[in-house]
């Protein structure tokens, strides 16, 4: 059962990690479709 629980924790870690990475690589809609002069937040 340890492998199963470790995997479930890994799902969460990968998801949070992916979100942090994707937010910083410049692929958000804001980055792709507007310039610095535009503030969407």
């Amino acid at each position, binding site marked *: 059962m340890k492998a199963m629980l470790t995997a479930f924790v890994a799902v969460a870690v*990968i998801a949070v990690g*992916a*979100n942090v990475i994707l937010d910083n690589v410049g692929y958000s809609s804001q980055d792709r*479709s507007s310039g610095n002069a535009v503030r969407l937040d």
Partner: protein
Amino acid sequence: MRALLCLFTCLMLALPVHAQEALSPASDRSATGGAQTLEDILARQRGEEIDDSFRRSAVGDPDGAAGMAEQLGTLGGASDPELWRALRYNSADITSSSRGPAATVLVQDGGMRWLQFRDGPLITYGGYLLLGTIALLALFLLIRGRVRIDGEKTGRTIERFKSVERFGHWLLAGSFILLGITGLISLMGRKFLIPVFGHESFAFVATWSKWVHNNVSWAFMIALVMIFVMWVIHNLPDRTDLNWLAKGGGIFTKGHPPAKKFNAGQKLIFWSVILLGTSISVSGLALLFPFEINLFAATFAKLNSLGISGALGLGELPTVLAPHEEMQLSQLWHAIVSFVLMAIILAHIYIGSVGMEGAFDAMGSGEVEEQWAREHHSLWVEEVKAREGNAPQGATPAE
């Protein structure tokens, strides 16, 4: 005989007439100077397929424009109606200060077809597929009951899956279940959850559901690669599979056909997961990075050139698609393939848990009852025992 010949001749004569009727002569638009007529508009409102090339291609001719100093020369060869038509059919030369990949598409009409398919057949048949699968499995449990271990249990266990294999399996399983639930919320929430929980609550759920779906997808893709690398060698088809399939896996008979580490049923699950999972991943990536990955125009062109679309009765598939249409098709494909894989996985979950005694241990502790292994994977047990027999003996115990 004469009557038959007569009938045959009549039929042969009638066919070309029928063909001519089917092609329907080009509409007479002289009264409107070539513009669409009331018949065209009514036909469109009835949802009929109409040849709109007379409008689609009437977008002016910049090459034939009058000189700048001539009458109407400043329009550049296209009148205002022609310009609007070009905008309508997405053939106008548009420049935009917006940097988005699809910023220059002002009108695309694929969205309505997509919405109708998504809210209609996709949700209906997809939902019935999942509910039908669950109902069939429940019926199967009622009729066949749990597949029990026939022989007497030995109390000894064999290691079936190492911890890294179980980790890979549960990474895939955990992410897939999350993706399945959040995907269904995204697809069906508007229809089934809003009426029950209201807009406010659903907005909260939908936002988180989208976050989970987008980000957990990476765990699924990583696990898919892990599973493929670890298990592909055990899932190559061989002769034992034919025997296993011919006996239906022994599911309705006494005893089970011999199988190696994975039987033919498990191999089918493996390849379904790999192929459908890859397809879902690719279409999912196209959705995750909107307008960056366009799959369908190129695929349609290949299907057309290979004659596959014609053979399937789909006719010539469009090879020029608006960026939005690429996204719409990716979403539909993503959902359709996911529904199929979810149905397959429901059966997999059933047989790995309530459906078969002793099966869950393989992925739970990794250790299976030897009797279970002998009944379901006899050839694999022989391999394991032979390996153990050949293993170098450790230090002999002192006497």
